[in-house]
């Protein structure tokens, strides 16, 4: 169907690999999965057309081995590589290797990845392009003394950030001048440890901001459009937990201004494909600031798809195949409301400890406007080696209230047996009045609220009854499954006089 994309290798695992395989198959494109030895049973291997083992369990020996992945592509006759998110998706050197091997890279040019990869360089580019950034330095700061002087000029609290950072790491808030020296030293050493680069810069601390991001799509022919915003302010440890669109409190003028700036930012680095520009938005002042650009597909891309009707992965593939954008900015609308929650294999009630293990039973929710993007199945053993996200659940509604109540319904229908998940915690968030009010900021999950929501949803009486019956049946007839299978029950009913009345 798309000649340059005859067969696509998906250089990822989990739900996003499944997502990309689905988009390819819908376009009539053949697919190749890659998998580590720990992932032979993973869903993306089952769903793809072909599969190649690329090494042992640790990511560094499998999903991060660029040369091995390119070898797998060449060996299977794949003509393109889709990186998903995470792993090698924002690795400019890998993007270059892919192109040098004669393959199509389903992503932005390596130069755009590089331009946005260093936070200080990105800030410089954005300032030059006239994009508002959080007040602070656009270069790494040399000495502690210089940094302190700048911090005083901006006014405390300030944020110290690693230039090479990402994923919520290498960030430290400094409230007072007397904490500055120790924060400076620890941020620098953490930056060196985590990113092999101790360059650190400084930003003003924005009080209780919303995290709002704009989705953009750019083709290879110079056209770039935005697909509106996503509000990703519900965060725990700088990780997004719930995402929605539209943002429930963003004034229309600000939405438009932010979107315009996002398109400018993408244009400034000659962007191609799907990308996201993240902003901090102050509800108090109404101002917004460029935070960073993610030069890849986002985990939360489905909410944008649900309100715009645009399949972003399909769009990535068509753009990579050289197509011009097939719609104009003015054709795009936000219709209704969409919310996504990320379902993790973790135990919220036990301080969110990871909970890998075997999924002994699984029943996913269904019905109208319920979308499940899952990387698991009944009988699957969630491995200990990778990210604990097992699925995403997305609901659309004609209003925010409709989307929220539908999502709560779907979460209550979700059955995952054998492992702990974040499902009850997510249900509690959606039922929280401040979330429902819509004005929540990144400070939403205060320690108090986190403690309350992570222990919500106890049904002690029901659990008491279930445990009593389980033990009773085990004591009465050990070795047999407690009580009846469906068929036995029907017989029993039929055999018991009076039960039919």
């Amino acid at each position: 169907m798309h000649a340059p994309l005859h067969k696509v290798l998906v250089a990822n695992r989990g739900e996003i690999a499944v997502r990309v395989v689905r988009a390819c198959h819908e376009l009539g494109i053949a697919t190749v999965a890659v998998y580590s030895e720990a992932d032979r049973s993973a869903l993306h291997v089952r769903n793809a057309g072909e599969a190649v083992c690329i090494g042992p369990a640790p990511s560094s020996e499998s999903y991060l081995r660029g040369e091995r992945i390119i070898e797998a592509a060449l060996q299977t006759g794949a003509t393109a590589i889709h990186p998903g998110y995470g792993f090698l998706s924002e690795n400019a050197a890998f993007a270059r290797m892919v192109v040098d091997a004669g393959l199509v890279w389903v992503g932005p040019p390596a130069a755009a990845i590089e331009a946005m990869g260093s936070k200080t360089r990105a800030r410089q580019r954005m300032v030059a392009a006239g994009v508002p950034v959080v007040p602070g330095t656009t270069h790494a700061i040399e000495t502690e003394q210089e940094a302190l002087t700048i911090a005083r000029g901006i006014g405390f609290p300030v944020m110290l950030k690693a230039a090479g950072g990402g994923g919520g790491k290498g960030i430290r808030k400094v409230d007072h001048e007397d904490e500055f020296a120790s924060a400076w030293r620890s941020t620098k050493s953490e930056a060196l440890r985590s990113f092999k680069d101790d360059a650190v810069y400084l930003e003003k601390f924005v009080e209780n901001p919303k995290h709002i991001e704009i989705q953009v799509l750019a083709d290879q022919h110079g056209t770039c459009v935005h697909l509106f915003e996503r509000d990703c302010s519900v965060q725990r440890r700088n990780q997004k937990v719930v995402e929605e669109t539209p943002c429930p409190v963003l004034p229309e003028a600000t939405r438009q201004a932010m979107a315009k700036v996002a398109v400018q930012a993408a244009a400034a680095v000659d962007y191609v494909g799907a990308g996201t520009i993240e902003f901090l938005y102050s509800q108090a002042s109404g101002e917004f600031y460029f935070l960073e650009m993610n030069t890849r597909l986002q985990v939360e891309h489905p909410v944008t798809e649900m309100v715009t009707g645009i399949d972003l992965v399909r769009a990535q593939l068509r753009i990579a195949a050289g197509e011009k954008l097939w719609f104009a900015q003015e054709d795009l609308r936000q219709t209704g409301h969409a919310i996504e929650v990320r379902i993790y294999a973790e135990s919220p009630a036990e301080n969110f400890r990871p909970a890998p293990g075997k999924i002994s039973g699984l029943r996913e929710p269904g019905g109208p406007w319920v979308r499940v993007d899952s990387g698991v199945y009944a009988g699957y053993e969630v491995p200990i080696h990778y990210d604990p996200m097992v699925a995403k659940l997305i609901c659309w509604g004609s209003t925010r209230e409709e989307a929220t109540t539908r999502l709560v319904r779907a979460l209550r229908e979700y059955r995952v047996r054998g492992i702990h998940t974040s499902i009850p915690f997510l249900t509690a968030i959606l039922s929280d009045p401040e979330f429902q009010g819509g004005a929540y900021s990144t400070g939403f999950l205060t320690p108090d609220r986190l403690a309350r929501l992570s222990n919500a949803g106890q049904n002690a009486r029901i659990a008491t009854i279930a445990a009593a019956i389980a033990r009773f049946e085990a004591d009465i007839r050990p070795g047999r499954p407690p009580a009846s299978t469906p068929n036995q029950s029907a017989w029993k009913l039929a055999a018991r006089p009076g039960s039919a009345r």
Partner: protein
Amino acid sequence: MKYEITIGETTRLVTIERDTGDGPATHRLTWIETDTDGTERNETHLVDLLRPSPEAFHMLIDGESWEAGCVASPDGYLVDVVGLTLAVGVVDPRRKALQLGVASAGGLLSTQMPGRIVRVMVAVGDVVKKGQPLIVIEAMKMENEMKSPIDGTIGEVYVSMGNTVETGAKLVRVDA
């Protein structure tokens, strides 16, 4: 049959029997429930149990539809209701007396999750405080500190760096 059933701080003494009435119920349960104001009252529930699949208990409790997943644990069951898994202790009072002789697990540190041992911070003979991190386990890209359950001296270390451990594996014994 009677069982002591404990969730968190609350223990209920539950009487359970097969239901022999005319209705579809399979089980009948009763216990004395203590309300928040301290008053006690009898609770009785008629339950029609069905296991639609091996991991699921579907119960019509007095006509209300509820589902639970029950997995046996050393002390009772892990019971999942509407997504939240609770540790439910179940004790048969007749057998309780027999079990009093069993030693408490006081100083034994074991893991609640599978993972890889990435740091062992103590050796046999070390003196440790309650809450002091002894072992670090990595699972799903996160490091988790396993802390000493008591003040004491390290009696034995069962794992070493790089080991992969399953849920329930013994890590360290701390002698008081």
